[in-house]
């Protein structure tokens, strides 16, 4: 046990060292070297995480205290790492998927010159460091440091090609929207500190009886605001699709597998707190459901391969929040894990397509790629099956446990969630068929350029495809004779309020119904899109979906425009006329006054003497009479 405590600090430290080497040596490192360093440190972190995982497998939980971060007489905030099943699971996801994506990046980014290449890996390592800090932190403050760190890295990596103004705007949008959520998170931490004087997870959860219901509801809601920002839920979800401006591996790592799940991690970590706030749970459930549905409908009509995946991510995150809201934390964490595999796979697959198509992202210009990109096609197909929820792939188990939880909570929620799951299958297979089936719709030149990606890209794809296929078996429900190992593994840290009470017959019926529906939707998508031809005009409703429900335009007109108007008012009236006027006015008054007073200096000695005499007389009179 002590061994674990002695080396856990290495897990986040290694990526930090990688960041420093790559960041400081970016001018002298060769591309090969920076790739090896960038991936190598993550590999070592992964191995250490595996070691930690096997150590905590029995349900151990350690708190490693290193030093006091803040030490004021009434409270101390330590630099603590909490090592327990939940964090070790996230450690494995982050370092494991992270390592694969680093390897993939070495090939994907090969066109960049050495300096930018090293910079890319430096940012990516810094991201992994922050993310590890986030999941390992033993209190909300360390979690918040990681939380901000991943936000920063997300900003840096979305704006990686910063010469393109649109990309930097997307980066700014992501950062600002995250900041809105972060404010909520910060307020929640202050609230906790004010009421309990501690932010340690263990202390907070042990002292919940000191909090009133209002406190708990307020704190959980504010924490959830933080999660909304980070995990792209309504109303702060619009940054995630724009974040696709970054390199594709970044989208896979940050905007699909890890960072966006930070909100789910945080709520799952605070499950004890949330169990006491039914109102918050209800809100989380509805927001998650609404996000899942809204994003899925938007994904139906997008033509940018990465945008479809981005909206699909938002939708899947909505599913996870739905699970959290129904008290089904383990299902949410389970879905985080399977989603990390299949969504990273899909993003990397789309990256492979973009790579092969030479930076073409519009699926209208693709088609028939399966003959030239076999491995990408097969792995992408597996990813689609997994996300659609076809048994026995991983997505089936995780999504099914979410749906069952929803069914027991509320039948209406269940039916909406099921409908959304069907939409998921539809838009994913639409993407698959349009991209890989039918005939090629691009130019002759593009077709000749299309090629399968190098091994550094296909091997991670294959590994992720295998994981997407089998990861579901870590939590096979009792229904299929499974042991629910993940549930047992996580049970020491998570107090699941949701317990399945359904009979096996009902479960079979629900699962079977869902699978049949999804299969029907897939075959419909197949016949609709197998020989897809892009149409110019779409129906009125289709147009709304194509324009993403006009959410961006709505935010623009109700928030951005008024803010800019206020800013313009302050600029022209308050700043230019008021403050500048005051400052310049003082200067002008002094100028004018001195010009007038200067006239007294007539140069006539008589005048001077006269004034002197008058002055003396005045003094004399004052002396005499006052």
């Amino acid at each position, binding site marked *: 046990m002590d061994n674990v405590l002695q080396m856990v600090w290495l897990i986040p430290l290694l990526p930090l060292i990688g960041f420093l080497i790559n960041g400081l040596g970016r001018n002298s490192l060769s591309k090969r070297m920076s790739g090896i360093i960038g991936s190598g440190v993550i590999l070592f972190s992964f191995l250490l995480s595996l070691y930690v995982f096997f150590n905590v497998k029995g349900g151990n939980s350690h708190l490693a205290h290193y030093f006091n971060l803040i030490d004021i007489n009434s409270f101390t905030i330590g630099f603590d790492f909490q090592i327990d099943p939940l964090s070790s699971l996230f450690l494995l996801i982050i370092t494991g998927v992270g390592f694969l994506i680093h390897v993939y990046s070495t090939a994907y980014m090969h066109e960049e010159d050495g300096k930018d290449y090293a910079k890319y890996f430096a940012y990516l390592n810094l991201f992994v460091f922050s993310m590890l800090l986030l999941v390992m932190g033993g209190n909300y403050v360390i979690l918040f440091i990681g939380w901000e760190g991943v936000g920063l890295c997300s900003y840096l990596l979305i704006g990686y090609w910063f010469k393109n103004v649109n990309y930097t705007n997307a980066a700014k949008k992501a950062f600002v929207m995250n900041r809105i959520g972060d404010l909520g998170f910060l307020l929640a931490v202050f609230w906790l500190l004010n009421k309990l004087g501690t932010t340690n997870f263990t202390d907070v959860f042990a002292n919940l009886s000191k909090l009133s219901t209002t406190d708990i509801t307020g704190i959980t809601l504010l924490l959830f605001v933080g999660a909304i920002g980070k995990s792209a839920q309504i109303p702060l979800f619009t940054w995630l699709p724009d974040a696709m401006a970054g390199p594709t591996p970044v989208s896979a790592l940050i905007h699909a597998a890890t960072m966006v799940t930070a909100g789910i991690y945080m709520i799952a970590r605070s499950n004890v707190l949330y169990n006491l706030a039914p109102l918050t749970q209800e809100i989380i459930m509805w927001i998650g459901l609404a996000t899942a549905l809204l994003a899925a409908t938007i994904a139906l009509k997008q033509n940018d391969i990465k945008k479809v995946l981005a909206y699909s991510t938002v939708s899947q995150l909505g599913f996870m929040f739905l699970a959290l809201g129904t008290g089904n934390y383990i299902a949410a964490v389970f879905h985080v894990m399977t989603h990390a595999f299949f969504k990273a796979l899909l993003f990397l697959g789309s990256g492979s397509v973009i790579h092969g198509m030479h930076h073409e992202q519009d699926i209208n210009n693709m088609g028939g790629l399966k003959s030239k990109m076999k491995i990408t096609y097969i792995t992408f197909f597996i990813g689609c099956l997994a996300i659609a929820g076809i048994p026995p792939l991983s997505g089936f188990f995780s999504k099914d446990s979410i749906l069952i939880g929803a069914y027991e909570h509320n039948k209406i929620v269940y039916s909406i969630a099921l409908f959304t799951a069907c939409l998921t299958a539809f838009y994913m297979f639409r993407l698959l068929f349009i991209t890989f089936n039918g005939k090629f719709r691009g130019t002759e030149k593009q077709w000749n350029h299309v090629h399968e990606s190098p091994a550094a890209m296909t091997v991670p794809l294959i590994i992720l495809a295998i994981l997407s296929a089998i990861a579901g078996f870590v939590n096979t429900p009792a229904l299929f004779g499974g042991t629910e190992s993940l549930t047992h593994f996580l049970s020491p840290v998570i107090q699941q309020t949701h317990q399945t009470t359904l009979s096996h017959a009902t479960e079979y019926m629900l699962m079977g119904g869902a699978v049949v529906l999804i299969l029907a939707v897939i075959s419909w998508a197949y016949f609709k899109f197998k020989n897809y031809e892009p149409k110019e005009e779409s129906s009125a409703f289709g147009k709304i979906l194509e324009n993403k429900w006009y959410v961006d335009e709505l935010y623009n007109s109700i928030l951005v425009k008024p803010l800019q108007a206020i800013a313009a008012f302050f600029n022209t009236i308050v700043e230019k006329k008021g403050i500048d006027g005051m400052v310049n006015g003082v200067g002008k008054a002094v100028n004018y006054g001195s010009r007038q007073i*200067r*006239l007294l*200096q*007539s*140069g*006539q*000695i*008589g005048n001077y*003497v*006269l004034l002197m*005499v008058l002055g003396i007389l005045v003094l004399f009179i004052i002396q005499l009479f006052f």
Partner: protein
Amino acid sequence: MEIRWYIGLAVALFSIGVMGVLTRRNAIIVFMCIELMLNAVNLLLVAFSKMHALSPVGLTNPSVVSNAQIFVFFIMVVAAAEVAVGLAIIVMMYRNTHVVDINFLNRLKN
């Protein structure tokens, strides 16, 4: 003689000096008027000193009285030095401008 005659004379001399400085334009006359004011004050100093000499304080402290009398000589010496400098300035001024009209000397204006 009573002190008020001295005061009256000194005031008369001082006023003449002030009026002269204020109204005349010839530098030498202005200069003389300044001397006149100075001497009016000197006269007053001597007169008050003499007055104090006859008072009880003066009778017991004769040194206080003689101090003022000697002080006046110092003032006269300094005034003489001042006159030497002042006249030298006026002579230089005349050499350069051929006038001794003070209204003509307004180059420091504004």
